């Protein structure tokens, strides 16, 4: 059987003003008809450039200097070398979208917001199959049904921004598959999605692959995804293939040090207690004397006053109707209940993980804690060295003083640093605002903070754009530490980073916690990450905390159906424990009304938290009958 796609000794370079960057250096691999090949690597490894070369959509400065991309679709008269075709020629355009299609990572930006889903999906079939508009509409709604749109005909006239992230990615898949291509390139198709949605999308791609008999080239950095879908694996690093072969062989016996390192850098379930992730490039954290010196000690017995942070009955509702002049007649009880009766405690020195899918209210909750939003009801009490402070009642100077106790690390390392400020200005700004120390003291402290997060002090004069995502995130951490806070809220601090960088940051956060005696509220959607760093885990769904348990207990014995669904949806980088994709309900796991008794939450049932002992609480109306070992 001939290969569908055969990439041989491909070299691609970028000719830019700064010089020539050789992004791809002699890549070779093949894709069999109907097969699944995973192209694995970190960002910057050149894997997406390979995909762009196959599609003929390389950016302008990129040039293919050597090698060939042979594409042998049985529907085409003969084998075509894509590198020989002009990317804008009619022949290449017919292949692009007709025989090879691509799905991108970002379902938010990959679709035009100004055109309806039906228009964008149907466009390709009109172009390549020459059907009429009415026929295209029929084909499109058929395709949307196939990718799991609940109401495909209605979906034709919706705009992408009216859809959820998961549905957008489904629309994207429908767009790629409508011409029934023989090769689908999926460029990080699930990276931007929640785990349960990710599992659904992976299942969808696999089902459709069988149905349409197409090959899939899956580009990803997530080894868990690879283990779950791929037949063959090609590992790329800095534009070269490090290792390739059958997926099982690769996972069973990784030969190349890079792949071994990559596998060690991924947080997994069932890690040994005390086991550390091994980042590919370790960062050295040093210093901390000045921070330790300025630390106010906790008076003995201060902990007796209560936990560090105690949250009771927080509720926040967002109005969804307009608030214009002529829009006063709002229906009562409308709006979205973002946070519903949330209560929890964080003890001093603990790391509490808060897990939930996007839109579950975790970020709203964190904003309430740091007084960026005012809740409708509830109290937040903070134990300031034995003195209990009502956080929501703080005003003016007291509030400013409180800000020093609680700091924030943001998710997006690009958006959270002002591009017009130098690193020194960014890190020292909190000190300036709170009037701490003189110029010289600040300079010393900022230098110490830099070495604490493992950054060179010579970088202080640079601007954020000259740093990588991981380095920026470390700058963000240094800024958060500048005021010597007691409590750090980390809102998805590693979700925008590569696996190897993720390991760096997680280890750094762990070390800093020990060194400076910090307390964390660690928000994430990634259970494996939370498993690695947190002592206690809270699971949140639709604004409610549904289960709270010590880390080990939660993973050993998850009680709530939502927790179980979350756990079962995480792809493990182990080919022997593949996801049971068939078991995943179509988004029903996060619907409180469809949870079984005694977990159901609807108009009639408002369950409270039930204590199962050992700090394990679950939201249910009665003590759950079956408590079998689930792991």
């Amino acid at each position: 059987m001939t290969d569908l796609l055969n990439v041989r000794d491909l070299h691609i370079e970028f000719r830019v003003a700064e010089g020539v960057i050789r992004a791809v250096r002699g890549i070779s691999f093949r894709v069999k008809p109907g097969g699944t090949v995973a192209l694995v690597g970190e960002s910057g490894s050149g894997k997406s450039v390979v995909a762009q070369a196959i599609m003929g959509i390389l950016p302008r400065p990129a040039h293919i200097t050597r090698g060939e991309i042979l594409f042998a679709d049985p529907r085409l008269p003969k084998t075509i070398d894509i590198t020989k075709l002009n990317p804008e020629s009619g022949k290449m355009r017919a292949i692009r979208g007709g025989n090879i299609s691509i799905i991108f990572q970002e379902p938010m930006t990959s679709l035009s917001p100004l055109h309806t889903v039906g228009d964008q999906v149907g466009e390709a079939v009109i172009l390549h199959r020459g059907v009429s508009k009415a026929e295209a509409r029929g084909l499109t709604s058929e395709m949307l049904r196939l990718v799991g749109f609940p109401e495909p005909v209605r979906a034709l006239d919706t705009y992408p921004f009216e859809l959820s992230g998961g549905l957008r990615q489904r629309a994207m898949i429908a767009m790629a598959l409508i011409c029934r291509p023989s090769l689908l390139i999926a460029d990080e198709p699930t990276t931007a999605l929640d785990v349960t949605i990710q599992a659904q999308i992976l299942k969808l791609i696999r089902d459709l692959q069988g149905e349409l008999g197409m090959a899939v080239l899956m580009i990803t950095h997530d080894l868990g995804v690879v283990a779950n879908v791929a037949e063959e694996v090609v590992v790329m690093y800095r534009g070269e293939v490090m290792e390739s072969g059958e997926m099982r062989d690769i996972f069973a016996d990784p030969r190349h040090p890079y792949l071994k390192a990559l596998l060690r850098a991924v947080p997994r379930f069932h890690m040994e207690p005390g086991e550390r992730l091994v980042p590919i490039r370790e960062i050295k954290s040093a210093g901390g004397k000045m921070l330790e010196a300025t630390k106010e000690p906790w008076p003995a017995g201060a902990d007796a006053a209560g936990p560090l942070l105690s949250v009771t009955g927080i509720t926040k509702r967002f109005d969804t109707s307009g608030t214009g002049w002529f829009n006063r007649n709002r229906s009562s009880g409308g709006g979205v209940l973002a946070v519903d009766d949330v209560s929890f405690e964080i003890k001093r020195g603990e790391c509490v993980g808060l897990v939930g899918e996007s839109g579950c209210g975790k970020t709203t909750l964190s904003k309430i804690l740091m007084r960026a939003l005012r809740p409708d009801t509830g109290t937040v009490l903070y134990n300031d060295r034995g003195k209990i402070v009502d956080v929501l009642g703080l005003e003016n100077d007291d509030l400013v003083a409180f800000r020093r106790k609680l700091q924030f690390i943001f998710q997006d390392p690009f958006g959270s640093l002002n591009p017009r400020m130098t690193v020194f200005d960014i890190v020292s700004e909190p000190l300036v605002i709170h009037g701490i120390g003189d110029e010289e003291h600040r300079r010393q402290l900022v230098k110490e903070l830099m070495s604490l997060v493992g950054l060179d002090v010579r970088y202080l004069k640079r601007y954020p754009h000259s740093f990588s995502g991981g380095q920026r995130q470390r700058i963000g951490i240094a800024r958060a530490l500048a005021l010597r806070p007691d409590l750090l809220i980390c809102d998805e601090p590693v979700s925008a980073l590569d696996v190897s960088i993720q390991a760096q940051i997680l280890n750094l956060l762990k070390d800093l916690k020990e060194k400076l005696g910090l307390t964390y509220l660690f928000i994430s959607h990634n259970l494996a990450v939370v498993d690695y760093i947190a002592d206690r885990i809270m699971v949140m769904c639709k604004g409610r905390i549904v289960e709270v348990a010590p880390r080990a207990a939660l993973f050993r014995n998850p009680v709530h159906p939502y927790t179980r669904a979350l756990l079962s949806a995480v792809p493990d980088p182990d080919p022997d424990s593949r996801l049971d994709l068939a078991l995943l309900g179509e988004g029903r796991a996060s619907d409180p009304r469809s949870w079984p008794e005694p977990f159901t939450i609807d108009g009639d049932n408002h369950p409270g938290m039930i204590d199962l002992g050992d700090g394990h609480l679950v939201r249910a109306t009665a003590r759950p009958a079956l408590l079998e070992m689930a792991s």
Partner: protein
Amino acid sequence: MLGFLVRRIMVMIPTLLAISAITFVIIQLPPGDYLTTLVTELESRGEAIDQSRLQFLRETYGLDKPMIEQYFVWLGGMLTGDYGYSFEYNRPVADVVGDRMLLTIIVSFATIVFIWVVSFPIGIYSATHQYSLGDYGLTFLGFLGLATPNFLLALVLLYFANVTFGTSIGGLMDSAYIDAPWSMGKFLSVLEHLWIPVIVIGTSGTAGMIRRLRANLLDELHKQYVVTARAKGLSPGKVLWKYPLRMAINPFIADIGNLLPQIVSGAAVVSIVLSLPTTGPMLLDALRSQDMYLAGSFLMFLALLTVVGVFLSDLALAALDPRIRLEGGATR
């Protein structure tokens, strides 16, 4: 959508009322009124003033009444189509303005069309051929256009037209048609004269528009959805036309509201240089001599133009961009 329309129109009413009040106050702010200006002027010429006539005028136009009363009289008149009386011309404002309003609208409209027609293809070319020779050349021309004061350009054009073609291009029509009733000949004559002021007034606007379209389009061209469209196999022209261009024109439409008053007021100096029979020069005179009803009517006209322009651009935006149409009040 209907609700949006109604709401939008309702909001325009208080806006215009507020503008009228502010306009009126500002016109009244300088000490004195038209009559005091008249008196000083006559005195400087050594002419005697008939006190009884002065008193008569003051009573007729209610100049002795408190400002707030004058304002409501003026406002009531405006609503019923009586724009007041011009002291300087001794005629009702409506008569004085006459054709000028229409000609102003014609010139402004032609200028906007000119700006769009010229800047669009150039902007698209500049963005799609970024850093090419053509882009640099057009960029240079654009900066020249931006940097040249348009009254200077008007003088230059006047000079060259006179020297090379021996024609006088001042005015908006042949002198034979001035004050003549509208006819086909007059219309054609206006068209014939229109292009010079349109070029002069439109140059800087065109240059600015090219820069903005280029910047907008460059932003959009690198967005992911453009790559998606290319990956579908669409031809480059179709991709450009259907996706990034649609996104890039949003700011233009949003700009109509700003463009209108800018053109009308920016044209005042040019109109004086080219002696165009538009509203600009007359407004200037009216403000100088405190011919309050005339000035007030002009200013209100400008305000109306702005408010209506913004309204139209809002409508066009809502029609073009589903995010505006559908998200209004739907989320958050």
